[in-house]
């Protein structure tokens, strides 16, 4: 058994920031991650990180208001205030750690415009800000000699008397299963993009943390809020950063018209993501698309700006769509990108399960509500990663380690061996995952309705049944990715169940949850979070009121 004060699951930005905070607080910390830290999906955030720096005349309150409005008033305003107030400090901290942020002519940090915000406050490193931050944070983890269990796969949370006191995990290299004991566990294991097909998300984004918490009695909140990013490539669903529009790129329909003027006359292409994605989908549905796409046109920005600031997505366009944005518009469409929902936490990452914390995309504070603003996700990971790390470190000082034996690991060994030994089945993980992904993308995308979501619920139920008949072909111990994918699929089906149950519950349109059959926002009845927990009889729904401090809900116009 491996013993720690604080155990962090996941080595993306939230996880490593949490680990550093806890380590600086004097706790013994370890991180478990299923990939090498620099392979984490924080990498993929391209455009930047938002912060209102007061020394340049910006106010955190303005950033907070933009975020509240962006969330379609579903974000909790106390939490949003915390995030926006601490944003400047976190950005400066990352600069001090070594991030090579772009500069202005005076040598200070430079900013670019981003969607849904009235002021340019997005700090950036070309168009690979996430990668730059992730590598820098990894450097700090190396510097502080934080113990990282690399390529270890977490199987389950260890629970004792209703408290979380560790995890079981498999060393992918050997296939051995161990119990990790900890006074506090921080889940920072990222999003669940692969529940949808296609998705901009990496193959590792399989909702492990959300499902592990859900199985252990944790509450999931805002799970119906799934963000479709306005600019993804049709070919493979790859992301074309919002930075393209932030730098001045246009969206055109088949008639060459900048159609956003019909939907968001003031902010145009830089309206919030839910608004732009709906506009695109409407254009496509009404026959003004080409092969299910509209176009991102950056030709007028010129080769120099594109090469300096949009180099990654230029390459992606060339590699994956055969279109060089310097010379031609790139066909794009809305694609699944992010989940606003997740494990319900306080602003300190505390969940409803004692000893269990969550931060980053796997958590829901809720700062993003119905729709996340671009460049607020990196900020979310750092601010709430740090706060979770600090709180968990303090909590672990006041807590004595539970006397748990090694029975959890033994149970998991039996479960895994039974899965490997299964002979009476005819299902393959790949097929079930594809059917799940296509179902979710068909019925829980930009536009939804009752009938479609009910179909999805039935289909997910069916797939959960068929999952019990999956045969794992690879019987080996060493690096058995076949086994890992099968386990991940189990997590994803639980996440899909939670998403569909929450979406069916919300009987209005708000943020990313747009129902064709109920197109209006209904503040009177639905200015509240949908919370889902797992019971024997399936998902169980409850509500949590939205925290409103100073910004009363208004009609949302861009």
């Amino acid at each position, binding site marked *: 058994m491996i013993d720690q004060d604080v155990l962090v699951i996941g080595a993306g930005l939230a996880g490593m920031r949490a680990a550093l905070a806890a380590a600086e607080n004097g706790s013994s910390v370890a991180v478990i991650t299923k990939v090498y830290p620099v392979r984490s999906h924080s990498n993929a955030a391209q455009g930047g990180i938002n912060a209102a720096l007061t020394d340049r005349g910006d106010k955190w309150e303005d950033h907070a208001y933009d975020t509240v409005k962006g969330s379609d008033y579903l974000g909790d305003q106390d939490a949003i205030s915390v995030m926006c107030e601490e944003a400047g400090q976190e950005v400066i901290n990352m600069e*001090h750690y070594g991030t090579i942020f*772009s500069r202005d002519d005076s040598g200070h940090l430079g900013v670019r415009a981003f969607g849904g915000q009235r002021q340019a406050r997005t700090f950036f490193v070309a168009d*690979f800000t996430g990668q730059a931050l992730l590598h820098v944070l990894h450097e700090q983890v190396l510097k502080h000699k934080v113990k990282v269990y690399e390529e270890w796969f977490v199987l389950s949370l260890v629970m004792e008397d209703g408290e979380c006191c560790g995890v079981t995990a498999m060393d992918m290299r050997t296939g051995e299963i161990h119990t990790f004991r900890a006074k506090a566990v921080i889940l920072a294991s990222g999003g669940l993009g692969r529940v949808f097909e296609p998705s901009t998300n*990496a*193959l590792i984004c399989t909702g492990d943390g959300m499902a592990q918490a859900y199985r252990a009695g944790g509450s999931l909140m805002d799970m119906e809020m799934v963000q479709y990013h306005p600019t993804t490539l049709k070919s493979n669903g790859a992301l074309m950063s919002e930075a393209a529009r932030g730098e001045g790129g246009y969206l055109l329909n088949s008639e060459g018209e900048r159609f956003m003027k019909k939907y968001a006359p003031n902010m145009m292409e830089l309206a919030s993501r839910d608004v732009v994605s709906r506009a695109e989908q409407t254009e496509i549905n009404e026959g003004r698309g080409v092969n299910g796409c509209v176009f991102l046109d950056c030709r007028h920005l010129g080769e120099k700006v594109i090469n300096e600031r949009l180099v990654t997505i230029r390459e992606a366009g060339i*590699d994956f769509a055969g279109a060089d944005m310097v010379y031609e518009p790139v066909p794009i469409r809305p694609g699944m990108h992010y989940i606003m929902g997740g494990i319900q936490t306080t602003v300190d990452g505390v969940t409803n399960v004692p000893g269990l914390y969550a931060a980053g995309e796997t958590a829901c504070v809720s700062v993003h509500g119905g729709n996340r603003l671009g460049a607020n996700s990196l900020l979310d990971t750092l601010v709430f990663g740090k706060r979770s790390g600090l709180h968990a470190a303090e909590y672990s000082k006041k807590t004595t380690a539970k006397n748990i034996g090694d029975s959890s690991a033994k149970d998991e060994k039996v479960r895994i061996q039974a899965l490997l030994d299964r002979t009476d089945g005819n299902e*393959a993980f790949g097929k079930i995952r594809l059917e799940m992904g296509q179902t979710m993308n068909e019925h829980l995308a930009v536009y939804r309705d009752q009938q479609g979501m009910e179909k999805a619920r039935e289909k997910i139920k069916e797939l959960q049944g068929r999952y019990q008949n999956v045969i794992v072909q690879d019987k*080996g111990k060493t690096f058995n990715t*076949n086994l890992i994918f099968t386990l991940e699929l189990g997590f994803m089906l639980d996440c899909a169940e939670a998403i569909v149950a929450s979406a069916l519950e919300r009987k209005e349109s708000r943020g990313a949850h747009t129902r064709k059959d109920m197109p209006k926002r209904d503040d009177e009845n639905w200015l509240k979070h949908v919370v889902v927990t797992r019971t024997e009889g399936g998902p169980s729904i409850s509500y949590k009121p939205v925290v409103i401090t100073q910004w009363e809900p208004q009609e949302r116009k861009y």
Partner: protein
Amino acid sequence: MEVTLNVKRYDPDSSKPAAYYQEYTVEVNDTTILLDSLIQVREQIDETLTLRCSCRAAICGSCAMRVNGHAVLACKTKVMELLPKSGNTITIEPAGNMPVIKDLVVEFNVFWDKVKAVKPWLQPQGPPPQAEYIASNEAMQHLVGVTGCIMCGACVSDCTVLEVDKNFLGPAALAKAYRFVADPRDDADSVRLGELNEYGGIWDCTRCMQCVEVCPKGVDPMGRIMALRDKAMQYGYQNTYGARHATAFTELIKHGGTLDELRLPIKTYGMFNIKQMVKLIPIGIRSQLKGKRPPIFHKAIPGVENVRRIFKKVENKR
């Protein structure tokens, strides 16, 4: 069209582990990406095929492997571009210079150890300022290229020095080191360069260009290593064979217009370095026998003053 992927496989859990090749046939079109074909195999044909991959967008660095003998990032490579002139078979092997764990999965521990060895974190002097460090955008933009490194290991896979000398820090770690030496906020340049000047460091690169060729992100590791050499010499680290070789090379060309191959090793090692001089004797005899011995009196080429003028121009520019 149909393409055959000939994949090198290795299963450590089999009763007699040994590498072997297995062929898979997949249907591709002009835009099919190699990684997508491999995922198709893994999900639909043979679930036991094992490889690392994640982002599918050339940013996470998981899927470096050798294809037709050279390292590529599978998610950034089109299948059609890999087809040989005749036939439709592509050979896929694990990345080189790292031990194989299973199929296309290789052991990265040594890779990370070497990255750690260059102390890859910013080392400024004194406490940080209240706000951000002031730095020119030009200096930061210069670092964009090298920080684009995604640690995929393609350069390490195909490094010809690592093939014969496991102690070499290698292109990825050295490019990472350059990232700090070139950062105006980092104040540890002299110490860093002193360490990089040691055995296994910057002078062990043979400038074969392989790392530059295979890098999927245009990081130019070899260029960074050359820049580190320049910096090291500027910081006064002149007393390695590498540095003296570079100095001697420059001086000889400046003097004669072409290289005086007889004096180059003598100037590099030093006339009284008996051990090295003795080592040169067999080479001398062999070149004499093959008729390739450089002339004892090296004559300057006609127009050598033009060569010197070029040197002067470059030196003034510095």
